């Protein structure tokens, strides 16, 4: 394998790495760089990442440690796209900060870690990627230096993620002990389904559960989401979750297909509990960031339906749902970021009367919220129904009943946001303001995505064509 082949195979990683190195050099050799220049460079490198998707090149490297196939490339492309939106949306907040470049470097390192995580063909690479994606993320949570809650959130996150890594490693070591390998394919061949191995599977799964914030591993989510800067919260709730779900699907279907009958009930149970608990807690939230933290827990519960169904259709539905979720959640967080940075207000009550003063922002937030609730004509309706239909194909009827009933509960609190903006009157509404251009771009992309992704069946068809071959 020639050097060029490696570069083509690791095209996403190489571009991300190059961008990190250039940013480091920029940090060292140039003082007083304009924020707009930094943003321009970062956006360019992100666009390069998106462009890298169109270079084809599949195979594996390093003895099967690093695997590239079309589906994984698409997954990388999706999270790069989401990260691009985050960079754009963070600009208005970051340009006031001194450490613009550091933020970009750290976020890109997280992304790099996620690339390795997604491409893992071996649990060693998997673990390296996971840690690389987690530890820098904790520093990002702490990026709001002036706020004590920010550091508190970071502390909680690093402690709990160390804890979950330990459990994960314990599971991996049992697996290694019983199969004698860490390679995905070799483990699959040596996997017998003995109770010790199943125990290892449970431990590994709880590591995932922490990252995707499934109940009962969700307790860190609300505090961290509330403490972190809004853009980081958006990243945590969207990209971080997406990458973990992607690799979870790979691990479950590639490594443990034999144990399908063992892990499906586990996933079904967790899915039902996660969406119910997430919903019940979301009802009581008054802080909008905490509110979205719990709503994202609920969404994770829905995603798990697709994971549990484990078919080409369900995998495609999960990817499709996550794509829509990116549009909806980043759209919502962009509005929240704009308002928080402008006024420092974070309570749902502060959004009262927003439609009168900022009609376009309210409509964007309304569409995002309706998409999360799965109300037509937004794309969220399609995303959610496809997940449920894939569950129906697999015959998970009980779970579907729980999920459908949960949609009523979630409608209640999503409507509360709509009510605050459109119905309630406030003595002190948020004043009219003009958003910056970067945020406007993000909002336009998100709103277009929320409206169009559902109707355009070509997008789903494309994702499905990639999942069906595997």
């Amino acid at each position, binding site marked *: 394998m020639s050097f060029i082949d490696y570069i083509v195979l690791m095209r996403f990683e190489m571009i991300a790495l190059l961008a990190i190195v250039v940013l480091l050099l920029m940090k060292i050799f140039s003082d007083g760089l304009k924020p707009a220049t930094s943003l321009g460079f970062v956006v360019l490198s992100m666009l390069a990442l998106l462009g890298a998707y169109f270079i084809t090149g599949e195979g594996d490297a390093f003895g099967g440690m690093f695997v590239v196939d079309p589906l994984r490339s698409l997954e990388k492309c999706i999270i790069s796209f989401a990260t691009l939106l985050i960079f754009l949306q963070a600009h208005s907040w970051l340009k006031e900060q001194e450490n613009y470049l550091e933020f970009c470097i750290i976020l890109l390192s997280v992304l790099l870690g996620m690339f390795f995580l997604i491409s893992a063909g071996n649990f060693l690479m998997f673990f390296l990627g996971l840690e690389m994606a987690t530890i820098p993320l904790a520093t990002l949570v702490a990026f709001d230096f002036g706020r004590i809650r920010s550091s508190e959130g970071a502390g909680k996150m690093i402690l709990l993620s160390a804890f979950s890594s330990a459990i994960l490693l314990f599971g991996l070591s049992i697996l290694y002990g019983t199969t004698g390998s860490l390679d995905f394919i070799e483990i699959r061949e040596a996997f017998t389904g003995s109770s010790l191995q199943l125990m290892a599977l449970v431990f590994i799964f709880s590591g995932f559960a922490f990252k995707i914030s499934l109940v009962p591993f969700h307790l860190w989510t609300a505090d961290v989401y509330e403490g972190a800067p809004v853009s980081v919260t958006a990243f945590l709730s969207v990209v971080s979750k997406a990458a973990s779900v992607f690799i979870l699907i790979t691990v479950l279907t590639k490594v443990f297909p034999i144990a399908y009958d063992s892990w499906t009930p586990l996933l079904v149970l967790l899915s039902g509990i996660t969406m119910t608990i997430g919903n019940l807690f979301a009802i009581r939230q008054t802080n909008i960031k905490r509110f979205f933290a719990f709503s994202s827990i609920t969404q994770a519960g829905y995603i798990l339906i697709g994971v549990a169904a484990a078919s080409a*259709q369900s995998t495609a539905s999960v990817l499709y749902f996550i794509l829509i979720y990116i549009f909806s959640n980043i759209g919502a967080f962009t509005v929240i970021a704009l308002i928080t940075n402008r006024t420092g207000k974070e309570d749902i009550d502060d959004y009262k009367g927003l439609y009168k003063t900022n009609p376009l922002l309210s409509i964007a937030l309304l569409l995002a919220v309706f998409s999360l609730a799965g109300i037509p004509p937004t794309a969220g309706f399609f995303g959610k129904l496809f997940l449920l239909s894939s*569950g129906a194909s697999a015959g998970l*009827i009980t779970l579907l009943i729980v999920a459908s009933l949960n*949609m009523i509960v979630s*409608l209640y609190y999503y*409507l509360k946001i709509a009510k605050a903006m459109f119905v309630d009157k406030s003595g002190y509404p948020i004043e009219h303001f003009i958003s910056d251009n970067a945020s406007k771009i993000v909002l336009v992309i998100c709103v277009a995505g929320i409206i169009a992704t559902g109707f355009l069946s070509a997008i789903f068809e494309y994702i499905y064509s990639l999942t069906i071959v595997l």
Partner: protein
Amino acid sequence: MNLSLLILIPILTLIGILFVDGKMARVVALGGAILQLALSVFLLFAYMSLTDKSVLAFEETHVWFAQWNINYHIGIDGISMAMILLTSVVLVAGVLVSWNIENKPKEFFFLLVMLASGAFGFFISIDLFTQFFFFELSVIPKYLLIANWGSGRKEYSAMKLSLMLMGGSALVLIGILVLYYYSVLAGSPTFDMQAIAKLGLSPEKQLFAFPFLFVGFGVLSAMFPFHTWAPDGHSSAPTAASMFLAGISMKLGGYGCLRVATWLLPVAAKEYSTYIIVLACIGIFYGAFVTLRQRDIKLMNAYSSVSHCGFVLLGIGMLTKTAMVGAVLQMVSHGVMTALFFAVIGMIYQRTHTRMGDEMGGLMKVMPFLSSVFIIAGLTSLGLPGFSGFVAEMTVFVGAWQVPDLFHRTATILATMSIVVTAVYILRGVGITLWGPIKNAKFENLPDATWNEKMAAGILVLSIIIMGTMPLWLSNMISNTTEVLFGSIIK
């Protein structure tokens, strides 16, 4: 004849409303509504002139999500044709009634037309997924309509209504997914109703799926004990939204119960018919007696809607051809009648600023036009021959009487007796509000109806009279379809 126009015109209207300012929205909305009505009437004649009415007319199929076998599949038959006519009549009247709305007119008309477009899509869809899409589309605008433009406890009512209707649609969703699962088991995954009807599902499967679909749709048609959203929602909603709620949304439920649940799962419908009849009878009686106690004339009509929608369910539960035709006729008749009632109540309220019947009195002297319309609506409601209510209720009763066993006979007799109660509250309501001396001096100089109100009332009254005096074309159209769809179970 391109059936997609029925969806396209409302969508274009919506886009049009987006691009005009404030008050111009009403012109666009009215234009769209009239165009839609013209199209519906044209469609009616096109449908009547078809020679073969045993298959879906004007069918259109476009593949949407091939992997799920989800198609944009639309088509109409006699039953959906009747509902389309109803919806477009109510839409025009609803826009006319809200002509002078001051508060955020653009948003108001946008939501109103969106609600109607959901209803149109629902009535013509053959694919369950597409149908559910339109179904949900017509649920959510109601929240914003009631919470923003309503009166009284509007936020509470709007939330209650949305959650209960969402509960209904969640049950429907479960039903649809269960049906999809059955089609997967049968080896041909599909959401298409025609394909599912041909699957020949076993009785156990039908018995499992039926309650989800029927109760889910039943919530929308205010089936006892899931009717509690109706009085709250109707009484708090702005006039046009009340008209849509009772005139169109409740009919989505009835149509779903009949055209989806009963058609796809005939064996289960037969099996569960006893329960349906019992619930329908309770609804009819309970609604009628609660109406007796109301002082608020809007609440009166809301509760009487519960009672009248009971006849729809009764007709479905009886499982005879005549009763089912009666059920559909009742949907149309009640839709127009209740829209008229809510419209005229809204107009009176605008003038008197009270909805309490006993605070009014003598209104006939000051506003003869509105009062006459009120009387016409009332007489339709109590089933006076010559108006649509008589035709519909009579058909249901005749159909119900055709089942000879004791249970069905008892149910029929009980249901028929509720007409007496209806007569009591209607006549008393009319007497208190319209006749006698003028109780409140302020009412002496109230103006009568304006041109838009006259037109709105006129178009609804005209529909009632057409249906009441020459019902045969409508009932023939419906009964053809009923025979085709329910041939296997009707007696």
